[in-house]
């Protein structure tokens, strides 16, 4: 692809996405014309599976994509698949998922929880008691839905339940489910709980088939969720186009975070060709104000989904290291310094800084992750860090 900067004509780009609220910066960058202002003519291509997004990005059918942060790392490491080096110059969102459980499981956990049900350590310990009682009664193990083997959802669920003593591979079943099937599966009893992004938790609550037990921000204060992903060689060939793409996204992120324009952002996301979901439901996620129970109880959090504020858009290699550590913890990846370096190198704050000219926001957390349990995360000693968690696959 050749650069066409300054020639007056727009550079065409094909960008894949999954209809989820955390594609917001991409959808608004296009919908509000910010990309066009930067000289980009973006064609958005809606996809139905992360596997499709990954393969089409890898093959070059997409120039860029809305992608699960762990998939970018897995692809760069060649885990399970073709090894294609992917980098991200822009983090589309931090957090944004929730754990939703069936009314029956909700009641069972609430009956066992010893204290504040917003404390994930207490709910995880309650889950252990529920799981143990089910085992004794000879009941089938509980089934938890998540979106992909290499997903923050998978690691958040595992991190949470393992803290309470529940082994995610032995005591329950974790299964992959496409987000649009989550709610039906919960209603029909195929799963007892799931961890997914917006709008699906709210849809389950509105239909009366689920309770939001946790926002994932209860588990980790900062978790890189979706990234804008590009192939590494593409970055080298198209530096000016990439910088324009980053700036358009950054402007969109600021637009979304501005309370004055958030409703307009929600309306853009709600369009039939984007998410095709009611703007009011999308607004709940952007505002971090969610109905958590079918009876109408509302919970508000300033950390529900961070699109651009608090430096959320700037890729943080510590986040990449944490995700890699989870792959190691759960036996998806072997531990090596070389792999850790590759994982960290996927997240490129330098590209973000160069394009936006912004000074780096100083992280408010000492370790950049803020997990509810365990020692502070130190990417330089992953082995020692993982050894402090008794339930692990390595």
């Amino acid at each position: 692809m050749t650069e066409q900067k300054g020639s007056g004509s727009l550079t065409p780009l094909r960008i894949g996405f999954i209809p989820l609220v955390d594609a917001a910066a991409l959808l608004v960058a296009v919908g509000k014309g910010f990309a066009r202002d930067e000289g980009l003519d973006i064609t958005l291509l809606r996809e139905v599976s992360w596997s499709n997004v990954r393969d089409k990005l890898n093959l070059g059918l997409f120039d860029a994509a809305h992608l699960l942060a762990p998939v970018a790392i897995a692809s760069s490491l060649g885990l399970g698949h073709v090894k294609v080096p992917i980098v991200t110059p822009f983090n589309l969102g931090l957090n944004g998922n929730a754990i939703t459980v069936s009314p029956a499981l909700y009641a069972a956990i609430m009956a066992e929880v010893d204290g504040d049900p917003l404390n994930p350590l207490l709910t995880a310990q309650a889950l252990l008691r529920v799981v143990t009682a089910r085992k004794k009664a000879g009941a089938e193990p509980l089934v938890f839905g998540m979106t992909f083997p290499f997903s923050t959802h998978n690691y958040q669920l595992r991190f949470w339940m393992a803290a309470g003593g529940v082994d995610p591979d032995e005591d329950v079943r974790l299964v992959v489910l496409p987000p649009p099937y989550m709610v039906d599966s919960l209603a029909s009893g195929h799963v007892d709980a799931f961890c997914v992004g917006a709008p699906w938790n709210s849809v389950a609550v509105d239909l009366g088939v689920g309770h939001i037990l946790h926002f994932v921000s209860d588990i980790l204060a900062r978790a890189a969720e979706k990234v804008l992903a590009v192939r590494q060689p593409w970055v080298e060939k198209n530096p000016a186009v990439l910088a324009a793409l980053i700036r358009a996204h950054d402007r969109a992120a600021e637009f979304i975070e501005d309370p004055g324009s958030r409703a307009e952002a929600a309306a853009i996301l709600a369009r039939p060709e984007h998410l095709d979901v009611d703007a009011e439901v999308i607004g709940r996620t952007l505002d971090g104000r969610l109905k958590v129970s079918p009876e109408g109880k509302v919970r508000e959090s300033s950390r529900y989904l961070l699109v651009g504020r608090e430096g959320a858009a700037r890729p943080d290699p510590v986040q990449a290291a944490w995700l890699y550590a989870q792959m190691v913890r759960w036996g998806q990846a072997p531990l090596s310094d070389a792999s850790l370096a590759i994982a960290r190198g996927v997240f490129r704050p330098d590209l973000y800084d160069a394009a936006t000219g912004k000074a780096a926001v100083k992280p408010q957390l000492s370790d950049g992750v803020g997990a509810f349990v365990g020692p502070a995360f130190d990417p330089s000693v992953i082995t020692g860090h993982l050894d402090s968690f008794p339930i692990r696959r390595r």
Partner: protein
Amino acid sequence: MAAESSPKIAIVDENPIRAAILEEGLREAGFASVERVGEMNNLLARIYQIDPDVILIDLENPSRDVLEQMFQVSRAVRRPIAMFVDQSDTASIQASVDAGVSAYIVDGFRKERIKSIIDLCISRFNAFAKLQDELERTKTALEERKVIDRAKGILMKLKGLSEDEAYVLLRSTAMREKKKIADIAQSIITASELLK
């Protein structure tokens, strides 16, 4: 191909016609053991029941991500998937993605035997897409025909024209305005409904 050496193939596709076309092709090519899965609920359990050597899935299917967990070696996965098409062969991945199908090969299946299955898949999927395209075009043509007939009727009634004259008027207007005859016909219908 002898029946006992025939690999077990699972076709995961919610479109029953396309699945049938693919199954027929595979059977004609001598693959005797083919199972279709059209129900996405409990997909993994169904796959384990079939215990296939090769899984074919269409790319419009969100359940492709469900199969991806079979790459993981875990208690939940009995026979892991060894690869996705042929990982060394980008051209074949590209051709299958273009056709809208992907293939997963379960551990233990001999890699060199997959090529003919993939090629067949690609050609059947492409044939189906062409068929669907033609069907779509026929449908559109039929609908346009109905719209034109209605507009002709309106013109005949309002302007006292014969059927041929009404058609000539539609055609000449379309040519002058550089539009399709069906579009002009639609505007006439809309206008006449507004003026009712």
